[in-house]
């Protein structure tokens, strides 16, 4: 096999093993927090800027996922597919560091103290995600951050408070991705390629989702799960989609 393939597969296998060996206690603690909140009618609010938004989408909605999580996807910082031009990457990378914006996002929603926040940031230094954590804490919520810890420690701080996400979150789960995220060295190319954080984030998300589903089921509150017709047939699949979305609407409809 070509060496670059081997390098990437080794890097990702190492990440998965590292998460399994070092992060499971934290993942268990986060899962219990989330299950408790969801069982009690609370919500797990989920946010990430830039590519960290992919992890938000991994949480809910998709096959094998269930209500209780509230994805917050802000297009100004995550819809950069135009790359260059209107709605380009330059604007997104500028906006994700504008202090004050997070509060403008947060003020849209009704929060309960029993809610939890789940935040993703590979660098852990984006000003918007940091202020999402600060705003959540000010509102009395528990904050879980999924961060590439080594990467974050070596990234210069940008926020005016001098803090990084790992300084604010109540619980930090390390994605165990290498410094700089990209993991493959190509001969004669001075830049590393092939980032690994999406795989690290996705693994953490699905470990949490599997365990929260188990905890809710054990608690006598099995979640409504978006399920493929391959498992339950077309009619049942359609019905569970309707029921799941109605349950999502019910959970997110809140009064002040």
């Amino acid at each position: 096999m070509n060496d670059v393939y081997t390098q990437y597969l080794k890097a990702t296998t190492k990440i998965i093993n590292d998460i399994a060996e070092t992060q499971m206690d934290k993942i268990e603690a986060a899962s219990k927090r989330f299950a408790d909140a969801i069982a009690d009618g609370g919500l797990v609010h989920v946010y990430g800027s830039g590519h960290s938004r992919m992890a938000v989408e991994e949480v809910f909605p998709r096959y094998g996922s269930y209500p209780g999580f509230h994805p917050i996807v802000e297009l100004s910082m995550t819809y950069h597919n135009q790359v260059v031009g209107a709605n380009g990457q330059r604007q997104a990378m500028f906006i994700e560091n504008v202090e004050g914006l997070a509060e403008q996002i947060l003020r849209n929603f009704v929060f309960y103290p029993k809610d939890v926040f789940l935040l993703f940031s590979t660098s852990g230094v984006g000003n918007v995600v940091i202020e999402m954590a600060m705003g959540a804490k000010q509102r009395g919520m528990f904050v879980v951050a999924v961060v590439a810890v080594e990467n974050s420690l070596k990234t210069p701080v940008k926020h005016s408070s001098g803090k990084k996400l790992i300084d604010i979150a109540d619980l930090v789960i390390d994605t165990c991705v290498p410094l700089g995220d990209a993991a493959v060295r190509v001969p004669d190319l001075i830049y590393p390629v092939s980032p690994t954080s999406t795989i690290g984030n996705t693994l953490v998300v699905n470990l949490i989702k599997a365990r929260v589903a188990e905890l809710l089921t054990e608690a006598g509150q099995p979640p409504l799960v978006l399920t493929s017709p391959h498992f339950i047939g077309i009619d049942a699949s359609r019905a569970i989609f309707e029921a799941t979305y109605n349950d999502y609407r019910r959970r997110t409809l809140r009064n002040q």
Partner: protein
Amino acid sequence: MNISSKYVEEAIRILREIEATQEDKIETVAQLFAASIADDGLVHVYGSGHSRMGVEEMFPRYGSFPGFHPIIELSTSNYGQVVGANGIYQSMFLENVEGLAAQIVRNFKYRPNDVFLLFSTSGAGNVVIDMAIEARKLGLKTVGITGVKNSGLVKAKHSTGRKLTDVCDLVIDTCVPVGDAAIWIDGLEYPVGPMSTIANSAIVNMIKVRVAELLTLQGKPPLVITGAQVIGDVAAKETFDAVMEEYDRRSRR
């Protein structure tokens, strides 16, 4: 007079005021745009918030033609969700963040004969003001379409203390009343019925028809997006494709 008629009357009054007081400026702007477009330049068009509707009115749509470059930033103009993710709180915050306009402007290539056309009813939004400042740094002419009476009473927010009227080479007044909303209802303490969209649209289309005429007079008639009802299915599709190709050619730099 019923309340709907009051709105119509006020709208007509504003249109007449634009015609009576802004025609010279509109003519100057149309000449400027036609000269730029005839010379393969682009008229870059931007507005935050509802002023984005002025941008969409320009191009692309039926009766419009290439030469205009709409810059639609979702972060400052996509608030259809109202409350929630991508809500209007975020949009109204971002349209006042200094520095964002420079990030938008740097995505594009400019030529010295390009022009910037900017919409802002308040004339006090920091992003639109910065767009004008950035355009002038590039040596480009700037045209602002703003509610001058309204803007005069709005507090400046920009760190330079300036408003759009202070940073544009040419200003067209939309003649909308202070606060934009024009209709008072007995027993309601707030005015309703904003006028700026009608005024912006009228000015945009006054400019467009005159630019089309000027280009045609110069022997460079523009390719115009035209409905099948007017020229038939086949010609409408062919014209549309030709307009898209022409737009692509002009904006590929």
